[in-house]
């Protein structure tokens, strides 16, 4: 009997397609449609408890569950990598609960769930990028009251954000914000692009649909394809998409975002592509770096 139950759980039998019940999916789907219609605006939704802790992508998982069809091919990345715990378990969750095909190839995926990175390979029409978002409100650390931040968005009162960036300049000589760098969507809403490095901000203007889910904070927002997304800056301190000043030690790429990896306890370190698929694809095409 016990074996039978384990088998059922492994195959996803006894669960609805894509885990969530249909009424929950309808609620999320309605929120998604409004989010797309009002780019950058955070739509409240009745986030459910998911079989994973908050902070592990409960918002992203709910958005993915509401979007998946049986024909989809799913890719999940965590900080650019397909092979980390969070990415592996979410990918297996949907392989089991929705029976969808999975892949590590950006080009083969139709739905990509991501934690804190945008793939290096440009996305195309027909792909959906689902972001896991911890704090959806870009003004939250400047103004803790939800009633106030909501009013600030309504009045398009974003002066405080510019003051914050200015204080960066006053203190450090440049805008020191390096991730979760605020953007203005289609000239209206200031939005938190989730904690992606600011290197990824220019990729927010893409042919793919981008959906953002914050489970604990119960918010969904979206950037439709071909939408204007401008990183906030000043005329004399323009936005700069920065990365480590090095080439990938494995594939030699100079145009990708790099992780710094400590290799020993005597100060040894190497820089490698954060996007594992991008790096692997380049190495298969015989591009090599210094350590390969």
């Amino acid at each position, binding site marked *: 009997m016990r074996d039978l139950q384990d088998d059922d759980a492994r195959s996803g039998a006894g669960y*609805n*397609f*894509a885990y969530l019940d*249909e*009424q929950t*999916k*309808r*609620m999320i*789907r*309605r*929120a*998604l*449609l*409004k*989010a*797309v*219609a*009002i*780019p950058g*605006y955070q*739509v*409240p939704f009745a986030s459910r408890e998911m079989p994973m802790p908050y902070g592990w992508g409960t918002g992203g998982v709910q958005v993915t569950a*509401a*979007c*998946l*069809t*049986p*024909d989809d091919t799913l890719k999940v990345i965590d900080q650019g990598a397909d092979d980390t715990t969070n990415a592996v378990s979410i990918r297996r969750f949907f392989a089991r609960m929705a029976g969808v095909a999975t892949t590590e190839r950006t080009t083969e995926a139709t739905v990509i769930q991501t934690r804190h990175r945008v793939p290096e390979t440009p996305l195309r*029409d027909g792909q959906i990028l689902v972001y896991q978002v911890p704090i959806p409100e870009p003004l939250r650390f400047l103004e803790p009251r939800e009633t106030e931040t*909501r*009013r600030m*968005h*309504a*009045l398009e009162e974003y002066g405080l954000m510019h003051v914050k960036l200015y204080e960066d300049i006053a203190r450090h000589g440049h805008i020191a914000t390096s991730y979760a760098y605020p953007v203005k969507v*289609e000239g*209206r*809403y200031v939005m938190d692009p989730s904690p992606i490095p600011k290197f990824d901000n220019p990729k927010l203007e893409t*042919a793919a*649909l981008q959906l953002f889910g914050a489970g604990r904070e119960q918010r969904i927002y*979206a*950037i*439709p*394809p*071909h*939408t*204007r997304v401008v990183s906030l800056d000043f005329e004399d301190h323009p936005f700069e998409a920065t990365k480590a000043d090095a080439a990938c030690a494995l594939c030699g790429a100079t145009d990708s975002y790099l992780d710094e990896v400590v290799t020993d306890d005597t100060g040894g370190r190497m820089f490698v592509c954060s996007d594992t698929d991008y790096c692997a694809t380049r190495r298969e095409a015989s591009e090599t770096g210094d350590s390969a």
Partner: protein
Amino acid sequence: MRQDALSGGFADPPREAALVFRAALDAMSRPGRIVQVTGARGPAPLSPAAAALMLTCCDAETPLFLAPGHDGPALRRWVAFHLGCPLVPRGEAHFALGTWEALGPLDAFPVGTPDYPDRSATLIVERDGLSASGTRLTGPGIDGAAHLDLPDPAALAANAARFPLGVDLFLTAGDRLAALPRSTRLEVS
């Protein structure tokens, strides 16, 4: 007649609703694109596309306005059995269904509030046909420009001018649908 009310739902609701939603999401995120949705039908004059869209989006949590021409005993029974939506006047509707003429002026529907612009109606406008020609559209979701044959471009341009407030439209004909979110800018000659 009772048979009419009970039939017409999805054969495999989770999978079919997922496919219909993805088509609707595709249409809403790329205004002007016309997609096909199948798997549902309701009593006349409800189009198969509108039936599929309602089965995917509407339930007991979404008050529905049925415009004259669509409002009738057969469709009311179908809605009661398949969706369970409360039927309400225009001003309280989350969803509204009918032809453009029967739905009436857009001002009558909720357009959201400055704090919560998402609390606005979604109109399902039944049309005789859809064609990717006519009014020139620009804005989010559109690479350059798109074209869509729209019922009253001037009224829809006024709706877009209220952004972030406004209503969002699905246009349905037969088994095809297109969408016009409030974010789309219309070129009215």
